[in-house]
């Protein structure tokens, strides 16, 4: 488990903390979504999670190891995969399999074991057969899945994804979301940072940050109950949920919960 305990971080020279007393846990096999406007501290929190930054106040523990402990840094990073917004900028290798091998190579894994891990990781993100493909011959979504495979090859217990879909087209976005869901299903704890609530409606837990502080901590269902409150936190609800709210307000009977577009169609056409 990654445990953020009252974690805070102040950038050198900044007057206000970027993250201020946030407490949250990333648990194996669960999806934690982190929402918030630009400058809300999402990316800073992400970097606190794998010791790219160490907290100024509070603590961050990864499987019990304090990220402040310099001897534990490499152990922590091998357990916590990290992917960023721009897929292009995190690819090191000149061909796909070399990039996926980069992490295990750094960990000193033996060559035949690296081979197995690389093929498994590419398979897991749906890029089997792309071993010898050059990065610039891949689409944005494929590059981002390659980055996920690069993290997976280190056999991490957790994956922190910092706005992984922000630069992708709808197809690439759906593919990346599918890969992240697959990771959750095989027991990896995923922390997904995003601007789009519709990316994480199936999250196990959502926290919303504003100016470095937690302003919401609960389930997606709890967040969409009150569109006004969500909007005040800078979260725009997906159109189908807003529509459902309006319809209910005008007396249309709909099934409980927040319907997917297909459910909404199903409920509306008999009217």
């Amino acid at each position, binding site marked *: 488990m990654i445990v953020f305990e009252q974690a805070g971080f102040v950038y050198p020279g900044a007057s206000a903390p970027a993250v201020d007393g946030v407490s949250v846990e990333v648990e194996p096999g669960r999806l934690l979504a982190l929402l918030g406007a630009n400058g809300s501290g999402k990316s800073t929190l992400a970097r606190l999670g794998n010791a*790219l930054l160490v907290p100024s106040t509070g603590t961050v523990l990864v499987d019990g190891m304090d990220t402040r402990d310099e001897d534990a840094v490499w152990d922590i*990073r091998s357990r916590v995969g990290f992917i960023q917004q*721009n897929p292009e900028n*995190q*690819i*090191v290798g000149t061909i796909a399999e070399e990039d996926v091998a980069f992490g295990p190579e750094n960990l000193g894994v033996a060559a035949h074991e690296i081979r197995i891990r690389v093929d498994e990781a590419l398979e897991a993100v749906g890029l089997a057969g792309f071993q010898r493909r050059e990065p*610039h011959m891949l689409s944005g979504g494929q590059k981002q899945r390659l980055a996920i495979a690069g*993290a997976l090859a280190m056999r991490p217990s957790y994956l922190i994804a910092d706005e992984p879909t922000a630069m992708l087209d709808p197809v690439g976005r759906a593919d990346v979301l599918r890969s992240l869901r697959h990771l959750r299903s095989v027991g990896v704890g995923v922390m997904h940072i995003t601007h789009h609530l519709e990316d994480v409606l199936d999250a196990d837990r959502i926290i919303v940050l504003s100016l470095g502080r937690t302003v919401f901590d609960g389930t997606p269902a709890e967040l969409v109950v009150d569109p006004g409150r969500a909007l005040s936190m800078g979260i725009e609800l997906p159109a189908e949920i807003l529509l459902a709210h309006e319809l209910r307000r005008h007396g249309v009977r709909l099934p409980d919960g927040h319907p997917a577009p297909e459910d909404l169609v199903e409920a509306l056409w008999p009217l």
Partner: protein
Amino acid sequence: MRVPSTFGQYVPVDSPVHSLDARTKIGVIALFTLGLFLADGFAGLGGYAVVVAVVLWASHVPPRIALRGVRALGVLLLFTLLAHALRWQPATVTLLRVGPIGVDPEGLRTGVFFAMRIVLLMVGTSLLTLTTTPVQLTDALESLMRPASALGVPSGEIAMMLTIALRFIPTTAQEAERVIIAQTARGARFDEGGLVTRVRAYVPVLVPLFVNLFRRAEDLALAMDSRCYRGGRGRTRLHAAIMTPRDWLVLLLGGAALLAIGITF
């Protein structure tokens, strides 16, 4: 700007030359170069020409591609030939005279000799880059530099820098194209004016390109940190290059034969 699917000169086919270890090829080519400069007769050059032709045939590289570099050297070749062959008011017997300029047979012989040597050097050494991927080359370089690590030379880090540079060449080329299109859309002209004007037109392209490269470098550093990169120490490799008995055989016998040609003729 079209970005080729394979960067560099590499010709992606399977051949006995391609499958040799890059270090073997570097070693053999070093001895070939040495021998080529030791040879002082046409017999020696003829011998090397046969060797280069045979290796070229075995490598399945189209001769047209292998000779591409020679055309680029045309001016240098012509200059070499003329500088040796032409005499101003020649005192010796000349082959041909035009006014005060004459062609000296001995000079012509030397000119042809030097020109041939340049062509052989060019084609012979280009066989390395034609049959070896940039990554294999950087790996070979790292391995050859390893003894220098004892003296504090960061060979692993240098190889990593080269690999990353190779990795980002196509990315940077694509980005340059995007910036050029963006600037063109806003009225920039890259195709008019004199040399100075044209060079100056590229300043608004280079500035955003560099700014973006720095941003990329920052992201890349984070990505490498996250994936536990901590320098060359303790790193293993997916494709560890291994010198096979065949590599040693080619290196020792081939290298010795090439050197022998140069010494003998």
